[in-house]
């Protein structure tokens, strides 16, 4: 992506601003942040860390935002020289990745340039970026938000999506409206039931092309305009809430679904109740052929127009998150339940400070389908309430208790069943039991100590053909020491002691002051999958020194 005159103009503006006025220009404000992540790699044949000829790999970015009243302008410079392990090699390069100007008043906000947008839960449109996953599907075009009357928000978007350093072929057009009834109608302002409704429609245009069908000599009749629409409603009544969104997509033969013509649909429903010391929620979803990209040939992580929300817990402990669930936009059904309860303090079970219980469970399956044909056909049929093979299931119970003013302990038991088919390879279901003990102690004068121990027992065995180095039984220990108010030092080791491969030790040192954080770590990283919100990327094994610097101004 070559910088346009527009971006160069913006850059010149900022350089002038920063050089001449520091924090302001004409009363405006300049803010920004910089993040540099680098890694000095070494090959390690035992864990599969490859030999990167460049040795030094780096992801770096600088966001700068200028704000003056309702006027905003921003840009982002990115450099991948080359990208860190696990990030797509097509990111290699540097330049202005994002740039925009916008103006907003009470009624309207208009953005020209690159922008991010989301309609509802994102099932028909979610342009977003996640630097840790390596996804940036920003739209380059125009974005409008209008608030014509109180309680009503209208959105419009048109543009092409970022694909590494280029833009996809397809043009994305979308429009969305949402009304907050209690705000829009004064008679409903005092009503305890809060109602929000919305609907949106997104269309992708992509030029015709020749894509062979499974019948020799025949190509696909391609829809050039593919539409997707969604309706949603949120209800809230005192401690209760209920939200639902239903989306449909027209015929969209693409590389993800094997170029079938079945229409897509998705339903997401969630209900929750909360009160002091207790909350519970349940979520259910069904997704059928809802992968929606702005290029029908795209198979990677880029050019997604929509996003199917994940309804599995985002685990933070290493072994519980070793097998994360990747959302299957082509088809899945899922159910999640979550309960949090605080046992009252000064009770037998609650102790002096109370005890927190957190229970979560989820199950995800495929769809029950009947194959009807391959590329150029309807593809399959499925029954709405009938489930297919098990993809993923987990259950975890965390008990956390503050022992006294200085000491706190949290213990977690988790169970994960994982089907490797969702990562595209074979093997049977993996069943893992995980136990975590997490102890932290305040030592005073800015010092604290945290000790974490984890164990995972698995029925999986390392298979050299599949080469999944997560297999087997594992133990882990971590010691983290914070001192001086700004420094931390940590040591950790993950060791596969049975049916697997690997001993992954890491030492890390960090310094934080104000908005600046520097971290150095050295050690081995186990290969695996990193998922955020159901969107994942492979994390390859690495061995070496990692440097991370973040700052903002």
């Amino acid at each position, binding site marked *: 992506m070559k910088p346009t005159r527009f971006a160069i103009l913006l850059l010149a503006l900022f350089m002038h601003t920063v050089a001449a006025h520091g924090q302001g220009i004409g009363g405006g404000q300049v803010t920004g942040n910089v993040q540099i992540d680098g890694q000095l790699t070494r090959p390690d044949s035992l864990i599969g860390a490859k030999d990167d000829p460049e040795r030094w790999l780096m992801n770096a970015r600088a966001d700068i935002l200028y704000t003056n009243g309702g006027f905003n302008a921003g840009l982002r410079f990115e450099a991948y020289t080359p990208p860190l392990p696990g990030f797509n090699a097509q990111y290699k390069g540097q330049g202005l990745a994002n740039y925009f100007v916008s103006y907003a008043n009470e009624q309207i906000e208009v953005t020209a340039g690159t922008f991010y947008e989301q309609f509802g839960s994102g099932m028909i449109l979610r342009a977003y970026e996640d630097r840790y996953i390596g996804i940036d599907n920003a739209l380059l075009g125009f974005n409008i938000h209008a608030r014509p009357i109180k309680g009503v928000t209208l959105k419009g978007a048109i543009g092409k999506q970022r694909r590494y350093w280029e833009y996809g072929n397809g043009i994305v057009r979308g429009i969305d409206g949402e009304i907050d009834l209690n705000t829009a109608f004064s008679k409903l302002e005092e009503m305890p039931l809060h109602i929000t409704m919305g609907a949106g429609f997104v269309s992708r245009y992509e030029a015709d092309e020749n894509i062979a069908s499974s019948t020799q000599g025949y190509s696909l*009749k391609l829809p050039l305009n593919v539409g997707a629409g969604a309706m949603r409603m949120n209800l809230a009544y005192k401690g209760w809430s209920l939200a639902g969104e239903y989306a449909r997509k027209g015929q969209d033969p693409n590389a993800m679904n094997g170029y079938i013509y079945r229409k897509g649909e998705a339903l997401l429903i969630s209900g929750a109740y909360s009160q002091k010391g207790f909350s519970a929620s349940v979520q259910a979803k069904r997704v059928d052929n809802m992968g929606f990209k702005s290029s029908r040939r795209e198979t990677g992580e880029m050019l997604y127009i929509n996003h199917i929300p994940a309804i599995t817990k985002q685990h933070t402990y290493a072994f519980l998150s070793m097998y994360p669930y990747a959302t299957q936009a082509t088809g899945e059904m899922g159910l999640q339940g979550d309960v949090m309860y605080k046992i009252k303090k000064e009770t037998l079970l609650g102790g002096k400070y109370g005890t927190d219980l957190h229970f979560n469970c989820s199950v995800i399956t495929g769809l029950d389908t009947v194959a009807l044909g391959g590329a150029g*056909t309807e593809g399959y049929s499925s029954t709405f309430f009938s489930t297919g093979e098990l993809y993923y299931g987990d259950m975890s119970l965390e008990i956390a208790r503050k022992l006294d003013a200085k000491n706190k302990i949290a213990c977690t038991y988790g169970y994960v069943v994982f089907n490797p088919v969702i990562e595209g390879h074979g093997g049977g279901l993996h069943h893992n039991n995980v136990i975590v003990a997490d102890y932290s102690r305040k030592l005073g004068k800015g010092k604290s100590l945290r000790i974490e121990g984890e164990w995972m027992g698995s029925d999986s065995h390392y298979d050299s053909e599949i080469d999944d180095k997560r297999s087997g039984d594992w133990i882990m220990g971590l010691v983290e020491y914070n001192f001086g108010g700004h420094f931390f030092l940590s040591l950790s080791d993950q060791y596969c002691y049975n049916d697997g491969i690997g001993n992954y030790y890491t030492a890390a040192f960090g310094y934080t002051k104000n908005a600046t954080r520097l971290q150095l770590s050295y050690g081995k990283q186990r290969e695996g999958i990193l998922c955020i919100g159901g969107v994942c990327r492979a994390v390859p094994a690495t061995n070496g020194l990692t440097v991370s610097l973040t700052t903002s101004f």
Partner: protein
Amino acid sequence: MKRYLFFSLALALAAVSCDKIEADSEGRYIQFSGATGEWYDGKGVADHSQRVLLEKYTGVRCKNCPDGDAVIYAALESYGHKLVALAIHDSSSFTRPYGNDARLSTAEGEEWSNYFGISAYPTAMANRKYNDGYSLFNPAGGVNAEVDEALGEPTRVALAVTSDRNGAAYTIDVDIEFLQDVADPLTLTLLLMEDSVRATQLQPDGSTKDTNYIHNHLLRDVITNAWGADISADGKAGTKRHARFAYTVQNPLWKPEHCKVVAFISDKNTRQILNVAE
């Protein structure tokens, strides 16, 4: 006002921004995109009818030919789509035009005439029946016996042809489906015939020349070569093949709106016709 504008925009976007592709009869959303003249796996033929090509060698100076035409018109009424008629003018003296009329002869018609030994006019053949020689007969004396005999043969290969005309340019799609094993090599012949061609015709009294005589199902051109294009197929029962051909009408005096494309499958060795479609 803004609300109405928004909903109008939303409706407009929804209306124009979602294409619907219709499936074919087999539930497929595909279109032929292979090379013209090449054979590919096909979708089969819905109509397994056995049909007959009734070729009539004729000429504008042949006084008995109008009687043959009358019999053939009656047969076409009687047999409907199971009978396809074709009027062939070779280069004999019977085909020499009157006055300024254009000659209706074709090179392929002459080649066929010579091959089949046509010496009298009118002479007809039904599916080029061969039995120690080709079964030639005078259509003026009736065609039903020969047509019935040909129709009585089992359908060994089903055939369908469709043509899409854009001005003078035709795109012709041919589907064949083997219903029985066929060991002999086969060829596909495509031809263009024209109806409602006005040309002077000698009448049965031998002296009257009808200057407004209407010549129908007149052979204008053979799109493939005279003996057809080889069909690439293994000949096993159940085999389905498809081929696309492109053709442009060769003569501006031929009226495309009166033209039809005819396809027939014949045995490459005996020239006997296995099936025909128009």
